[in-house]
């Protein structure tokens, strides 16, 4: 198992900080009413997607998730400006303005989508893994979902099928302790989600989701296992979201002490402080990096989204069904 090199850490710190600033900028754009609809943000959970996708082959492996999907899409390779344009509902957006925040898709980079129904992606991830196995590729299918999603029947059904058919799927549970305003102990019999997997006879592990080096180590083991053809794997990451569930959430149900405790375990700051302590960077380097990222988002991402064209009303019915499919009207040979 390899350790993250200093260069890796620099790259990942930059990327996590980028993700943080990207999401904060989405928040502002929402308040300015440039973005509408539901908006679920990722701050606090950055080390989860970053650690796992650093260990996997982003852009090669298939990734699927729920509605909190911007950062996962970007890490697969989706250009941030196209993700932002999607949030603005623009024609240049990842899903051509038809999907919105909860439905980012970028199939070029094998980001197979964000889905709004809790638990919906589980069987889809298993199906993708089935396809991989049939076609004999070395990709794996990675499904990122939350803790509360595990109370859907689709969770149990999917784990069972993944196991009986020995499919290359990695289930990543980002356990942030809440499903909207309901704390996990009020909805779920077992707090540690990895324990629920014992009925499906696959490796299941729980690690700290705030420390990217820990996530990376655990994810390497998981990814190697799945890629080597041994079947599915379940990885639980203990984490916390810093904002409300979505923009319409007052966040009143969480104790201040709990929030403060998790704020001290900020994944971006954990890595930053470790690098500063090791002499790999200075506080000034970090501040300069932060400024660079903020400028990059403003000039390269927001500007693009704002200046992009809207979809045309004449194309409202485009993408509903296949166009010019030879089997639709008859006469195909």
């Amino acid at each position, binding site marked *: 198992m390899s350790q993250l090199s200093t260069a890796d850490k620099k790259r990942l710190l930059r990327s996590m900080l980028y993700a943080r600033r990207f999401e904060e900028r989405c928040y502002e754009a929402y308040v300015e009413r440039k973005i*509408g609809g539901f908006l679920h943000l990722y701050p606090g959970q950055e080390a989860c997607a970053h650690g796992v996708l650093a260990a996997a082959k982003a852009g090669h492996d298939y990734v699927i998730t729920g509605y909190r999907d911007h950062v996962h899409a970007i890490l697969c390779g989706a250009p941030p400006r196209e993700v932002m344009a999607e949030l603005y*509902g623009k024609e240049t957006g990842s899903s051509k303005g038809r999907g919105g925040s909860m439905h980012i898709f970028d199939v070029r980079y094998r980001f197979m989508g964000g889905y709004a129904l809790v638990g919906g992606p589980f069987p889809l991830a298993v199906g993708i893994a089935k396809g991989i196995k049939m076609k004999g590729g070395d990709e794996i299918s990675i499904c990122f979902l939350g803790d509360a999603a595990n109370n859907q*029947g689709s969770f149990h059904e999917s784990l069972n099928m993944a196991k009986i058919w020995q499919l290359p799927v990695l289930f990543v549970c980002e356990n942030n302790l809440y*499903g909207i305003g309901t704390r996990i102990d009020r*909805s*779920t019999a077992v707090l540690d989600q990895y324990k629920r997997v014992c009925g499906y006879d696959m490796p299941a592990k729980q690690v700290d989701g705030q420390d990217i080096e820990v996530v990376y180590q655990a994810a390497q083991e998981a990814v190697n296992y799945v890629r080597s053809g041994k079947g599915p794997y379940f990885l639980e990451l203990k984490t916390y979201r810093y904002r409300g569930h979505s923009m319409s959430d007052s966040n009143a*149900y969480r104790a201040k002490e709990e929030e403060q405790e998790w704020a001290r375990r900020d994944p971006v700051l954990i890595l930053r402080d470790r690098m500063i302590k090791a002499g790999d960077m200075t506080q000034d380097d970090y501040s300069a990096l932060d400024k660079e990222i903020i400028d990059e988002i403003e000039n390269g991402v927001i500007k693009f989204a704002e200046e992009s064209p809207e979809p045309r009303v004449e194309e*409202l*019915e485009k993408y*509903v069904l296949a166009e010019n499919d030879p089997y639709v009207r008859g006469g195909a040979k």
Partner: protein
Amino acid sequence: MADLMYWEAIRRAHDEEMARDPLVICMGEDIGVAGGTYKATQGLYDKYGPERVIDTPISENGYTGVGIGASFVGVRPIIEIMSVNFAWLAMDQIANSAAKVRYMSGGQLTAPVVIRTPGGTAHQLGAQHSARMEKVFMGIAGLRVVTPSNPKQAYGLIKSGVRCNDPVFINEHELMYNMKGEVPDGEYFHPLEGSEVARHGKDVTLFGYNISVHWCLQAADVLSKQHGIDAEVVDLYALSPLDRAGIAESVSKTHRAVIVEEAEPMVGVGAEVMAIINEECFFELDAAPVRVSAATVPIPFNRTLEKATIPNANDVVKAVLKMFGK
């Protein structure tokens, strides 16, 4: 008469029914401690406790089935599904258990549950949070489907739904929870069948339900003020069974019909009302009935496209003018 918001009217119905009968419970995601996404159960958790105001896991088919099972043995559950889009997951229990059990058991067992949920397209919630599913439920024998267009109906339909011995599906609307309207001060039971004339007129009948009643009323106003057309507006708050007699009565008076629905036209309310008109009063017609419906697309995220998908009062006016050759 008190002026209440739609959500307050719903909350009041819950509260009264729960106070009256200890076997009335309510259940759903985030309805207890959090008070409900649309505040429909606000304060009830503190008042009635966790045994009767139940925060469920995200297990729609599971908890809907639990509610239905409890109803077999005398409990009267009011089941909230946070958004009608999630009702797809509960469809098995709604269609295969609740709707069929009376028939399959030869009348021995019934499922007196109320299932209430917001449907409709709000603002940019995307394809998976904007479904209009009333027509799906209308197609299920054994299920009553109602859809309140105002706070009085929202209140009175829950009251009747809880007392009725059939499963009752109540289709509310995301955009209507803050709408105000008069609700009787005393207890009021809105009938689960029938229709209501929301505006009397003689030249054309505009059929609406839920939010589209309001588009019809706005259109009727414009038609009378600007075009001298006196439209009647019929509120089809009961979608299953539909009020055949009420539909025929109004069309026999105005001889013209426009059906306004928020959903796509295929297999929808409009298609069904047209069939009833054909069957009940075809020879009363002076013009072919017309539907005003949504475009047949999954709801787009982009606001301009979304608006272009869903009909509005102006579309109703245009359809009527076209019918009159204006």
